[in-house]
Structure formats: C-alpha cells, structure tokens
C-alpha cells in the first residue's frame, strides 16, 4: 500500500505523485486533505489532495520540497512506498453538498497561489462539471512556478494568470487581478482561496472591500490531523476552531490571519535545525531531484 505509481516534476522543487491508496481514493471529496508520513521515523504532515481515482485506487498529491519531510518525499522514486497515508481528512467543500440546481446559480472565483493550484483542481473540476460558473486566478512568483495550468484551463470557464515578475499573465498579485476582474464588470457569488497564508490574508481583505463572500482553506500546522492535538487551532469569529476537524475551509472574513501566520512559525527554528542536521548526516538523497 501507498506505493508511488507515478512521479512528475511540475516546476523546480514542485512535483506530483500518484499514490496507491484505495480506501482514500474511494471516499475523498473536493476540499479534503491527507496526513502523510514518508518513512518510519518521519513526521506526520498534512498534504492536499490534487485528484483521486476510485477505479485505479489512487490519489494525486502535489508536493513542494521545503522542509525535512517534503525533501525526503522528493527523494523518493516510482515504486517506493510512503510509510503511511491517512485520510481523507477535514470537511469537504461546502459546495459539495449543495444541490445541483443551486450550484448552477453560483459564480465561483477560485484564487490559488503556488501549489494551491493542486487542491483547487478537484473542486474546479467537480463544480464546473455540475454546472457552476467557475473562474480561476492562478498566481506565482514567475512563469515556471505556475503549475497545472492546462488541467485548470480544461475544467473552468476562464483562467487568469498573474506573476510577480510579469513573465506570464498579468504582472502583479492575485489581488490586483481580482480587482481588475470586478472593475471590468465580472460578477461572482463567492471567492475561494487556497495558497500561502499571507496571500489568503490579502485575498480576504480585497474580497471584503469588494463585498464578496470569501472562503479560505487553511494550511496550519498539524500532528495527528484527526482532532486530537489542537496544534491546528485557529481563531475564527473570535472562537477557537480546529482546522483538521472543523476546517480546513473557513469564512475568510472571520479568520484571524495574523495569529494564524504567527502560529505557522512556531517550529521554524527547530525545523531549520533538523533540516541542517539531516543534510549534514547525508540522510537526504539528492539523486533524482530533477527526475
């Protein structure tokens, strides 16, 4: 179980894996995530689900190699197995349970940054297929980091690209594109944003200024991911909520993003140290990084 059937680099340090996980493939819904442990001494880390195929019994995950665990995953090859994959976790997107007739009335604008393109893909596909009007703003630092463009293009009504350096699409931030679209007369019923916490903070602020309801899918720290540890707690509307069981999606206008950003940094020092130690011990194999 949990062996890697396919691995493909999408951008520098960003790769997609197809993993055998038949139970999860059968029950996953848009908006949910998994907890993965690369090896027997590894961390449990939350990863988003980029796709699932109940027939093949597999799920897709897009991973950015930034920490100890994601670098170990990057070093794994087709045929290798993850020690553990548990899920699907969290609540499905609120639009999953919406009746088709109502969903058809929705004009959804997904705003994704970086690897946030991956978790929106199953949502975009399903809601578009069921009749919602779906547009996507995809932003990244530069053109190389815009991933899953073709897949998103195929399954939405309009894809809008932005890059910080202008190497693809509109030069600027995703919030600039949001303001442009609304200024030129486009109308949306909801904004759904997934990406770096700081980006979601500013998307929420921009959407609020435009009077748009907004949903953010939070990428907090987690340990067990099943409601046991409380590491993922966030303040939403003044109340403490657990991202793993109450989320990951919350009303973006109610989320205390400054607190959430601060809490994300909690283990930065330790993580950096472990990463350095691991690299010194030579435990992280760099062979195949670019395969």
């Amino acid at each position, binding site marked *: 179980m949990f062996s890697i059937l396919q691995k493909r680099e999408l951008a520098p340090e960003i790769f997609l894996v197809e993993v055998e996980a038949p139970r999860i493939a059968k029950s996953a819904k848009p908006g949910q995530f998994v907890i993965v442990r690369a090896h027997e001494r590894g*961390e449990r880390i939350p990863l988003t689900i980029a796709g699932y195929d109940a027939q093949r019994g597999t799920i897709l995950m897009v991973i950015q190699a930034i920490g100890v665990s994601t670098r170990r995953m990057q070093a794994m090859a087709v045929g290798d197995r993850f020690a553990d994959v548990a899920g699907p976790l969290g609540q499905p997107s609120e639009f999953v349970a919406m009746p088709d007739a109502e969903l058809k009335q929705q004009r959804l604008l997904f705003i994704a940054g970086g690897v946030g393109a991956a978790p929106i893909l199953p949502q975009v596909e399903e809601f578009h297929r069921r009749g919602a009007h779906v547009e996507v703003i995809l932003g990244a630092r530069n053109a190389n980091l815009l991933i899953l463009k073709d897949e998103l293009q195929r399954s939405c009504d309009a894809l809008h690209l932005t890059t910080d350096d202008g190497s693809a699409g509109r030069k600027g931030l995703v919030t600039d594109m949001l303001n442009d679209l609304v200024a030129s007369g486009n109308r949306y019923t909801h904004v759904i944003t997934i990406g770096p916490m700081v980006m979601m903070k500013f998307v929420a602020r921009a959407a609020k200024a435009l009077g748009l309801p907004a949903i953010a899918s939070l990428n907090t720290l987690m340990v067990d991911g099943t409601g046991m540890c409380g590491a993922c707690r966030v303040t939403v509307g003044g109340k403490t909520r657990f991202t793993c069981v109450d989320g990951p999606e919350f009303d973006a206008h109610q989320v205390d993003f400054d607190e959430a950003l601060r809490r994300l940094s909690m283990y930065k020092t330790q993580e950096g140290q472990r990463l350095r130690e691991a690299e010194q011990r030579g435990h992280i194999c760099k062979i195949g990084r670019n395969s």
Partner: protein
Amino acid sequence: MAINNHPRVPVREQAANSRRSNFEEVCFGYNLEEAQLEAQRCLECKNPRCVAACPVNIDIPAFIGQVKQGNIAEAAAIIARDSCLPAVCGRVCPQETQCEGSCVRGIKGEPVAIGKLERFVADTAQAPSPTPAQPQNKRVAIVGSGPAGLACASDLAKWGYSVTVFDALHVMGGVLQYGIPEFRLPKSIVQRELNALQAQGVCFEPNVVVGRTISIDQLLDTEGYSAVFVGSGAGLPKFMGIEGENLNGVVSANEFLTRVNLMRAFDPEHDTPVFVGRRVAVVGGGNVAMDAARCAIRLGAEVHLVYRRSEAELPARVEEVHHAREEGMLFDMLTNPVQVLANDQGWVRGLRCIRMKLGEPDASGRRRPVEVAGSEFDIEAEMVIMALGTSPNPLIASTTPGLNTERWGGIIANDSGATSREGVFAGGDAVSGAATVILAMGAGRKAARAIDEYLRK
C-alpha cells in the same frame, strides 16, 4: 504467620537524578525473590475485597498464591482469564483507589503491592495462547486500538470471531502509544501485547479514520462486518478560554505528548520537532498533566505544575505525583491561570495566575476552589502546557445516522455497551469521557460479551 509480617517489599527504581535526563523506565519491577517475598504478605482472604475493587475482577489472591509457590506461568494464566493487558495495567492502573485501596493489609499498614506483582508476572511469563474456539464465521470491526478496543478484540478472537481493529494513527495502541510516556510504559511492552493479540488472529489496519476513510454503515453494509465496537477514545483537547491561549508556546498536553511519545521527538533520529521552554508551566492535575510535566523535565525544562485545588485533590496516581516531585517538579497548588502573557514576538513569556482557597464542597464532593481577590501574580515561563482534559471527537457520531450522543458529545451506550444503533456497540472514553486504561478495558470486555450474545441471536 510470622512470615508475612514483614513490611511491603520496596521496588527498585532508577534514581531520580539520572532519570531526569532520560526516557528509560523509572520502575525496574520486582525480581522473583522480591515478588515471592511480597506475595507472602497476601492473606488470601476468603472474601477478597481486592477482586471486587478490580474493574475486570482479576482473581488476585489466586494469582498471588501461585507467585508464592513460584508458579509464575500458572499465575499468568489466572490473570489472562480476566485481563488481556496485564503488563500495561500493572504499570498504569491507579491501584491505590482499586485493588490495593481495599486490601485488608492496608488497614493497619501498607497494602500488598498487587500492581507490582501483576507486572512481575506479566513481564516474566507469557500467558499461554488460548485454545481457539470453534470459528464463528462472523466478522467484527473494532474502531480504535486503545485499551477498550484491544480488550474487546481479545475476547472476541478468543471466542472464534474474525476481528479487525482499525486505527486512525499509524501505530496500534491508542493512548498507550501517544499518551503514556516511554518512562512509564515502554513501547516494547505495548508491542508485546499487540503481538500476542496478532498471534490470536486479530487483524490490525492502521491509517483508517472511521467516519472519514470509511463509515460505520459501510463497515456493516459493504465490508461484511456483522457488528462494530466503537472505542475511539477521548478526543479534542480542552482549553481554558483565557487571553493569550493561542500564543506561540501554548500547547495542549495531547500535542506535547503526541510529539514526544508517538512521534519520538526527543530522539534526534526522528523528524518531528518539539518546542520546550527553559521554564514550563503545566496547567492541570491529572495523570496527563504529570506525564507532560515529566516529559518536559526530561527535555531540560524547569516545570511548574499549576493546579487550582490543593495537593490532596490532585486526581493523578499517587505514584506519579511522588515520582514527579522526586524529579524536581515544582508544585503551584491553589493557583489558577487568568492570562497567558506575551512577549513582543507573540511568544509566551509567562502565566498570570490568581491564588485560590478551598470553599464549600461542590457536586463532586471536593471543596470548591474560590479566587482570593487581589492575589494575582506572574509565573515566568516560555511554554504553557494545557492538560485540562478532552471533549469527544464528533467525527463518528456525526457520520453515523441514528447513533445517539449525550449533550456533551459522549456516545450513549447501556451497561453492556449497546448503542441506539443495532449492531453498534461502544465503550471506553468515547462513552464515559476521559477515564482510565482499566475502566476502558472493562467496558471493552463487557461489550465483547454483548456482541457475542447479539451475534448468536
């Protein structure tokens, strides 16, 4: 009768000074000579109060009688009739309020060291694998591999049912793995108990979050299980709701213990990080608070235990409090936090507390702590661990139509574990709220009997 008038045989332990910096087991346990000497103290009462006080009614005088004779395998077989986790219970049961608390030797002196004798027997002799009963050709799913689930699985397997235990985590054992630290319950002991169950034919499936990966209804309708036992445990950690509780450096005891015990963050060979302040305030007074405090001590911290009642009311096992004191834990009793204080980076710099005094008894019969006006003071700390108990995880109840719950979230089950859903049984912390290993085990065994009856109908 002079032979049994000697005082309770002390148990050898790792010295407090050395164990403060390692995670190896504190208590070494008896050797054969010590165990036989201690066993002599048992009067083998005709009407043994210890048996009645044991939640699973182990025939204590009978097994101790065998220890006297040196028949340790016999003793193990007697315990195995009623307990599938003796090496665990010998270590973590609150004996002072159960078997040992009602031992007649305790009236005029010290009770027989029943827990230490149970542990000696379990560590020395493996009980013989029970002769498997006639296969029943019926499958039972157990949700959660903590003490309730394992006890239920053990009995059902003994009676010939085909049993699969599902767990959300990557290892089996539940709280025995993520909650109770290595120095109190070595994981090799848990593994041995799991191996014994596997030898009985119990199947384990980790990484299955029942309610998400698969529902109870799917287990019954499409996976071919005839009954389900839910022993999913305690659930979400509680917080106080005071200002500053989400600062960096405030964690639940569950998070801290999971990082240290389950993920083995104390070992640099494992990837999971753990943050430990130079000074740590642990809020609470139960076994979980003691475990968190003693882990923090081992990771180099100066630890304050902050508890709103007095030491006499600490709900933790007496032995844990005693060990924690030996290891240098500081007791801030009759003290209640009112605010977590922040530095300018949003990290903890201290805990503002108020002094308490004991007033009139409350509903629990304990004297209610009341604030002493104007007595606020600050404890300096870089980390605060909240060990305030848990509330039930809503996952299974919310995904199982027709499964009734109490208003506080616990699954409603009768004395034998039957719930409002036919074929669905429950027990342990998921039903009772946070309790002990042995009570969960007792509930698991009762449910096993009820499941057997249900499946024979």
